[in-house]
């Protein structure tokens, strides 16, 4: 399924311990975000990022190289989202402003790992299945709306709403599927097998949602991530998953608040 530049054998105990440290540090940093200590959160993430860059250099000829390089994307996500000032940015473009550097970073990592577009799931297969699965995003988004109950902070015009929905599908759906399924799950499945890889990827995904300050949301994100990893393995394509992921967020941030807030 994947063509790596390096031959891989599996992970040793120390790699798993380092992975667990990453999960721990991510959780601590996210808790600091919830508590409002942003400087501490960004500092932890920068330290973790430097540590993983260092490990990537050290393990250049090792099978764990791909793991460490892929993992650098995790601290990068939070550093970027917290350090960009967004005052003058319109609400419907926020995800685009934060998402662009992450797309670039993901593309660099994929190139360095030798991951082809096909291996990352950028191919159209079983279109009807993918479209059907994509539409499942709407009810899944409604469930998440019941958990999070986000409010609509401003009244977008119809034109802005369409742009906002497109931005959400592109910069949360496609981007997150590209980072988590296209790169991280691919790397983990090569090193650990596709079943364990789903859990390893989903733990990281769920850890990144802790700053949402809802245990139910974190648990829901974990379960959905496991499901998406499994479907990525079955479908071998990222388009349907990206559409579903995007529709979950469109439903959560636009459709449900517009329909149910005043009921």
């Amino acid at each position, binding site marked *: 399924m994947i063509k790596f530049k390096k031959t891989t054998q599996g992970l040793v105990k120390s790699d798993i311990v380092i992975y667990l440290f990453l999960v721990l540090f991510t959780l601590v940093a996210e808790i600091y*975000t919830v508590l*409002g200590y*942003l*400087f501490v959160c*960004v*500092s932890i993430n*920068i330290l973790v*990022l*430097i540590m993983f*860059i260092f490990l*990537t*250099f050290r393990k*250049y000829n090792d099978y764990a190289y791909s793991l460490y*390089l892929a993992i*650098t*994307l995790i601290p*990068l*996500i*939070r*550093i*970027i*989202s*917290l*350090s*960009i*000032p*967004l*005052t*003058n940015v319109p609400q419907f473009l*926020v*995800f685009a*402003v*934060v*998402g*662009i*550097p*992450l797309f*670039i*970073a993901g593309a*660099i990592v994929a*190139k*360095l790992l030798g991951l082809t577009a096909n291996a990352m799931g950028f191919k159209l297969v079983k279109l009807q299945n993918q479209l059907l699965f994509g539409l499942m995003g709407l009810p899944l*988004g409604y469930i*998440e709306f019941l958990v*999070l109950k986000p409010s609509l902070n401003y009244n977008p015009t119809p034109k802005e709403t369409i742009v906002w929905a497109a931005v959400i599908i592109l*910069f*949360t759906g496609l*981007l*997150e599927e590209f980072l988590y399924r296209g790169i991280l799950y691919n790397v983990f499945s090569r090193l650990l097998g596709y079943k364990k890889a789903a859990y390893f990827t989903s733990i990281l*995904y769920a850890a*990144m*949602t802790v*700053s*949402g*300050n809802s245990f139910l949301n974190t648990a829901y*994100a974990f379960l*959905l991530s496991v499901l998406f990893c499994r479907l990525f393995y079955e479908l071998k394509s990222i388009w349907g998953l990206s559409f579903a*992921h995007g529709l*979950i*967020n469109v439903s959560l941030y636009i459709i449900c608040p517009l329909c149910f807030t005043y009921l």
Partner: protein
Amino acid sequence: MVTIMQESTETLSRTNISVILKIDILVILTLICMLFLKELVLTHYEQYIFIKYDIKSDKSQILNVVIIPFLYIFFIVLIYKVVSAM
């Protein structure tokens, strides 16, 4: 189901907390360190002509994973500062 930006982090970014708490300076200092490190790596490998070109290129590109997004942040912060000063 968004990890790149939670509602709480968006609210904080909208109040320009990164500029108030000097997080932007921390990021830009890291960027400068990374640029220095990249130069060091390239200079270091210049000495070993027997090392294949693609290894040198790969190793320096690892740092691009950090440098390019941080350069983007630098420009956004720069634009923000110019706009808010006008």
